């Protein structure tokens, strides 16, 4: 069963085609690598898969659901209720003075008890009168159009995909620099199981339970990437290689089914990349599928179940490490035509 299915994905920026008709598949528990020369469109493809950029065409199916959400029932309800709200609001604001005069001023005698039922009836009769409906309709149309526009723009979003079980790291490390190491992991845990406003603001009993559980989970993850002794240090103070491991821990904290790693070995020395290979294998053992972008051939060749090669946005080869290594088009892309012969 495949976790991720990418069907003829295209990304165009103006005239530039960064990713052209790329299809790929990741099965449960697999480690798949995407390689290719610089500028081959690997990171762009990654961003389209994780929902950071909406793809120009093609589709991404994650865990059986389409990454670009269609118009479902909840969306329709949200749009219609926004439209109703906007209509009602425009009606109220544009007629505020009239309503106030008819409903409040007409019935209130200074310091006398106020006839509430009469006032409410009066209000109802105004709202349903013929004077009110043009305002309601124009507000309804504006609100509906606005809500539709907002829905249209947010059809793909990284947060929805993350909830569904997709996690990623970034090529240029994007940790929360002002937070401590453990807080970085906690953010990802909170997104799943954090306390709400009331629990947190008033310190309700349920808050402490959630906090304890989150801290425990975060410590386990730091332990997993061997960063537990830096838990309370600021993330920005960690050395580069550790920051990469912290990003992986943070991504794992979202309980992913698929982890996308964007050049995790960049800037690492041989010993560190050796450790990284072990780490990725341990992640795979936890049942998490891994999609990896990497330049470091040693890492790619030693752990990948399958390798996809991109060049100028096109997929030029796919297969096992040995197959890819022997493919003349791959050699051509990396070393030039002469070497391929």
């Amino acid at each position, binding site marked *: 069963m495949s976790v991720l299915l990418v069907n003829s994905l295209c990304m165009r920026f103006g005239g530039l085609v960064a990713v052209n008709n790329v299809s790929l598949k990741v099965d449960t528990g697999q480690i798949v690598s995407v390689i290719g020369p610089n500028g081959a469109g690997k990171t762009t493809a990654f961003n389209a898969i994780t929902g*950071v950029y909406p793809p120009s065409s093609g589709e991404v199916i994650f865990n059986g659901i389409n990454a670009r959400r269609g118009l479902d029932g909840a969306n329709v309800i949200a749009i219609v209720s926004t439209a109703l709200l906007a209509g009602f609001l425009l009606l109220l604001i544009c007629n505020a003075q009239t309503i106030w005069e008819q409903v409040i001023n007409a019935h209130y005698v200074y310091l006398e008890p106020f006839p509430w039922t009469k006032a409410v009836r009066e209000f109802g009769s105004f709202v349903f009168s013929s004077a009110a409906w043009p305002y309601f309709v124009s507000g309804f149309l504006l609100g509906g159009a*606005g809500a539709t526009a907002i829905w249209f723009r947010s059809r793909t979003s990284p947060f929805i995909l993350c909830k569904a079980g997709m996690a990623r790291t970034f090529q*240029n490390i994007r940790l929360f620099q002002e937070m401590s190491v453990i807080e970085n992991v906690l953010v990802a845990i909170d997104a799943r199981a954090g306390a709400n406003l009331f629990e947190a603001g008033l310190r309700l009993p349920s808050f402490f339970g959630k906090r304890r559980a989150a801290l425990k989970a975060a410590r386990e993850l730091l332990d997993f990437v061997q960063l537990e002794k830096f838990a309370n240090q600021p993330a920005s103070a960690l050395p580069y290689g550790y920051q990469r491991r912290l990003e992986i821990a943070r991504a794992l904290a979202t309980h992913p089914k698929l982890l996308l790693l964007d050049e995790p070995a960049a800037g690492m020395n041989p010993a560190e990349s050796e450790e990284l290979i072990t780490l990725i294998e341990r992640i795979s053992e936890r049942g998490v599928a891994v999609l990896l972008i990497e330049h470091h051939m040693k890492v790619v060749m030693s752990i990948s179940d399958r390798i996809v090669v991109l060049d100028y946005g096109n997929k030029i080869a796919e297969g096992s490490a040995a197959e890819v290594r022997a493919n003349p088009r791959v050699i051509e892309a990396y070393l030039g035509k002469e070497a391929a012969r």
Partner: protein
Amino acid sequence: MNDTEVLVQQLITGLCNGMIIALIALGYTLVYGIIELINFAHGDLVMLGAFMALTLVAFFDLNGASSGPAAWVGLASLFVIVPAFCAGVNWLADRLAYRPLRSAPKLSVLVSAIGLSFIFVNLGLFWGGLPLELFGGGNAAAAPKDFPGLIGNTNLLGAGNVQFTYKDLLVVLITLPAMGLLTYWVKFTTMGKAMRAVAQNPTAARLMGINADRVISITFMVGGALGGLASVVYALYNNTIYFQMGYRIGMDAFTAAVLGGIGSLPGAMLGGILIGLVRALTDQYIATMWTNVMVFSILILVIIFRPSGLMGAKVKDKV
């Protein structure tokens, strides 16, 4: 006046005010484009420019009745000295308040700009207390000042109901060439190109040998000069200035810059003209007291449908 004439008249007023707003909006958008600062002090700089213009009018002893070469030279000098003055003030502001904060958080720079805006307003108040006859003899510093009508109110369209006066013509003759020159400068000169380079990536521009600080200084000066020009046109067009006018003007101009897409020069021009038109038409057809509500409602509506303004570039996060 029949309905069509009313409409045409309001369109003329709206366009002229809009072009003045556009000129000021350019100052916001230039500075925002290069250092991502909402320059809160810009509207108040325009106010200072207007006070400078009034002082010069007193100095050259100009009034509505003056004519002859001396008056022309005096009038022309307004359009040179005031922009130079505003450019200088803006340069100084950048030098003293913003440049030391290049690496500070964005909001700190914003607070600095707010501080400068307070300082400018206060200086405007003091300036209004000058013991000159045009300033009310220094007795009512805070009172609005009359700016003499140096440009005639003669209707260029003959005896019709619709008015297009020398004042309106002046607005067109000053603002359009200024916008054209600015566009040319940004697009084709070396300094303009350097400016766009710094706006896109200051570090890379610096590595390519561009003196980013100098480019930013010059941007501030150009923005200030445009504001100065706008202040003279504003004073001649509206004939009254007061020390708190910077807030209102600045708000309109900033809204215009955002409406058009902040950072975009044609956007600022379009936004300014739209704001001018919306103001004039709301004044006429709804009620003056609802004009502000109208302007901002339209702004919010526009940015719901086009989140980066009418002509702003779509910004993609670099991942």
